[in-house]
């Protein structure tokens, strides 16, 4: 039963906070419709949605206006006598043809919008998005920039030990940076299972499928932060892989690209110098944030699917095997290869951290240069 209810005292906390939240607290948007659009695509979809909604509403009111009138006027309790008619061919033809014509009226603008959305030609920039369980990778193909984007909401907020922030579950460590007013072409794929990339205000949602490359485009009107989520069930942390886009004015974006490339050159030297134990532990703790989803903030894991790291066979075994598992993953499990996701320094630091924290104290460490040599 411990697996079923993961902490019994949470039940009590649940009851107490439930009452506290009843007066509808500070969070409130009460959104009733699609969010205000930020791209031409989202704008067209919103117009289409509103138009269809209106047509449906009119049909609904007419049909059920007739029905409720009948329920009122033709009641037995009012003494209404039943008329025994059972068909009317003219009427039946009319109410087959009219809906058909309405549908044709709906199909025309829908087709036009779809054609508009599918046209990914003449783009100014290509960003490749790869879904992972449970994070996103962004690669700027023309600029040789690549990074991962993880949920940054602290576990303490998720487990109700701290109050929730304004962007609870919709915040990441590194947002995807995009220019405003440029046509951006996105290529979308996945490294494991199917995910879906979606920012409601952009009006695009596409599946990220392993070995498939899907494409879509966006031209964003205004700089700002835009938030969305993975929209295809992808396992345990499906609800915890948000998408944040930091949209900048085009010039700011160009400056950001130059910055990123300079940083990349600077960090290349990091792998060659010798790190101290303290440096590795401090950096390792930062990197370990990416492991918490499966292996737990205390290394406790979620047995049997996700093994604990505290006293684990790998984390307290030979360091060579530990390096191998982190770099190359475990085939046929959700433990993926981190070789391409993390830098040499990241891998060395997180392995050192796992062996000397989380209740382990092996006393050994691994240098980034050793990882570099293994590539």
């Amino acid at each position: 039963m411990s697996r079923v209810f993961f902490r019994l005292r949470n039940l009590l906390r649940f009851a107490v906070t439930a009452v506290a939240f009843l007066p509808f607290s500070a969070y409130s948007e009460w959104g009733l419709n699609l969010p205000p659009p930020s791209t031409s695509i989202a704008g067209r979809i919103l117009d289409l949605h509103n138009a269809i909604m209106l047509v449906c509403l009119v049909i609904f009111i007419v049909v059920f206006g007739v029905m409720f009138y009948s329920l009122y006027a033709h009641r037995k309790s009012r003494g209404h006598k039943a008329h025994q008619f059972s068909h009317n061919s003219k009427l039946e033809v009319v109410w087959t043809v009219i809906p058909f014509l309405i549908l044709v009226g709906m199909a025309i603008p829908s087709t036009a919008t779809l054609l508009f959305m599918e046209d990914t030609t003449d783009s100014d920039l290509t960003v490749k998005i790869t879904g992972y369980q449970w994070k996103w990778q962004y690669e700027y193909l023309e600029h040789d920039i690549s990074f991962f984007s993880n949920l940054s909401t602290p576990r303490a907020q998720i487990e109700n030990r701290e109050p929730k922030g304004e962007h609870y579950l919709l915040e990441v460590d590194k947002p995807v940076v995009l220019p405003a007013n440029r046509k951006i072409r996105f290529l979308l794929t996945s490294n494991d299972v199917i995910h879906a990339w979606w920012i409601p205000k952009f009006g695009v949602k596409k599946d990220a499928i392993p070995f498939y490359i899907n494409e879509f485009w966006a031209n964003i009107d205004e700089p700002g932060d835009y938030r969305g989520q993975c929209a295809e069930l992808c396992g345990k942390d499906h609800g915890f892989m948000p998408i944040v886009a930091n949209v900048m004015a085009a010039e700011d974006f160009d400056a950001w690209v130059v910055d990123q490339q300079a940083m990349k050159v600077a960090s290349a030297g990091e792998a060659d110098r010798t790190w101290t134990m303290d440096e590795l532990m401090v950096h390792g703790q930062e990197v370990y944030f990416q492991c918490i989803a499966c292996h737990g903030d205390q290394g406790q894991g979620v047995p049997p699917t996700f093994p604990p790291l505290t006293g684990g066979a790998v984390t307290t075994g030979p360091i060579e095997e530990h390096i191998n598992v982190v770099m190359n993953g475990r085939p046929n499990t959700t433990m993926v290869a981190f070789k391409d996701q993390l830098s040499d320094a990241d891998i060395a630091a997180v392995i050192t951290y796992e062996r000397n924290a989380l209740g382990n104290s092996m006393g050994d460490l691994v240098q980034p240069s050793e990882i570099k040599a293994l590539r």
Partner: protein
Amino acid sequence: MSVAHTETHDHHDHRPSGVMRWLTTTNHKDIGTMYLIFSLMMFFVGGVMALAIRAELFQPGLQLVNPELFNSLTTMHALIMIFGAIMPGFVGFANWQIPMMIGAPDMALPRMNNWSFWILPFAFTLLLGSLFTAGGGPASGWTLYAPLSIQGGAGVDMTILAIHMMGISSVLGAINIIVTIMNMRAPGMHMMKLPLFVWTWLITAFLLIAAMPVLAGAVTMLLTDRHFGTAFFDPAGGGDPVLFQHIFWFFGHPEVYILILPAFGIVSQIIPTFSRKPLFGYDSMVFATAGIAFLSFIVWAHHMFTVGMPLAGELFFMYATMLIAVPTGVKVFNWVATMWRGSISFETPMLFAIAVVFLFTIGGLSGLMLAIVPADFQYHDTYFVVAHFHYVLFSGSIMAMMAATYYWLPKWTGRMYSEKLGKTHFWLTTIFFNITFFPQHFLGLAGMPRRIPDYSVQFSEFNLISSLGAFGLGLSQLIMVYVIIQCVRGRAEKATDQVWEGAEGLEWTVASPPPYHTFSTPPTVR
């Protein structure tokens, strides 16, 4: 032997008593009863899972269940409600009603009938048992999309085998229904005189035979991918993950109509009775049902608009899906026209039937919106979809079964349920249903994905309302159980043979409750 043979003829009702009666029965009424009790039990099992889901979603943060269990609960809730509550429920009504409505003494294949029921308890023991395996139950959603479903533990294999058993049960049941309707109609009961419930079930049975083997194929391929080294859905071995979705939905979309056509049939029986008028447009009802069944086979990919199909594919599936609105509209117009200038009274079955027409149409119209590809990109995999299919499946299928329960229970038990309790149940169900599911449209439009155990704070209010509604909805169903028990135990007033003033059809010509064997001599239909 010959002596025993004569004896069975002499004692017409000779049958074992106690458990053996139910294990060995070949009587359509007994089997119908077992199906219905089974369906009711599964309705509550699946309902408790839904309440666990709504309790977790009552407010942001993780409170009661961890994300893995949450995913198992959403998966199991769907599988149990679809394959355990709705499908066996409709088969139960078919078993009771079809022989009595066409003037047949029993189903055509009574022993197979016994088997098609008794497979089910084993299938669902296996399915529910998966929750207790290491790694938990299936957690990839009821759609079991590969490659996610390749990842799960032994629970997924148990689910696959359970689905095979449910499929066998459904196909056997469907064969029986088709054979019965084709061969055992009373003299004079021409096809175009069949009650509409029988017609919709006949068409549903064909859909079952066509669709269930496709599902069996999909899950078998999943099984061999998981354990026997094939790579149907694994691109690394030359397979294709999207292939699974195509096969699944080629089953899945006809399945949607398997779940709703018998409900249309029930509503088409009840509305004329309480309007005291024949059904409007009988012929067009039959053709519309057949039309919907045909279209259901060519629209499957509208569940997959976001996978990145070619433009031509998206346009085809959009147009074909929109077309379904035409025959469905015809049905709704016919029901309204049946009420028009009738002499309407509002007993509980009629209240439920009217609610089905009204609320199902909300689900139908949101379905039309979902067919519009560009708009679907926004709605897909959000709570808008969750709201849509609950309007179709709860206020369509489930509430139609409630209507049917109140409509035929007096006939089956010989006891008239308490109208006061029935109406209380109706109003509580309708109100709480809307409190639960209407706000989910707004959640979806605002951007809340489905199948998430925790959500950002902007979604708090509507989730809270929805959860409160769900608990009200769940508790209200206990009234129906009480009503049924009262009737079955004979604690209610006696019902007449006619039961409803405006009811027409052969089932109302026999006693209430009907004798164990009805129509041993076929009636003549004029």
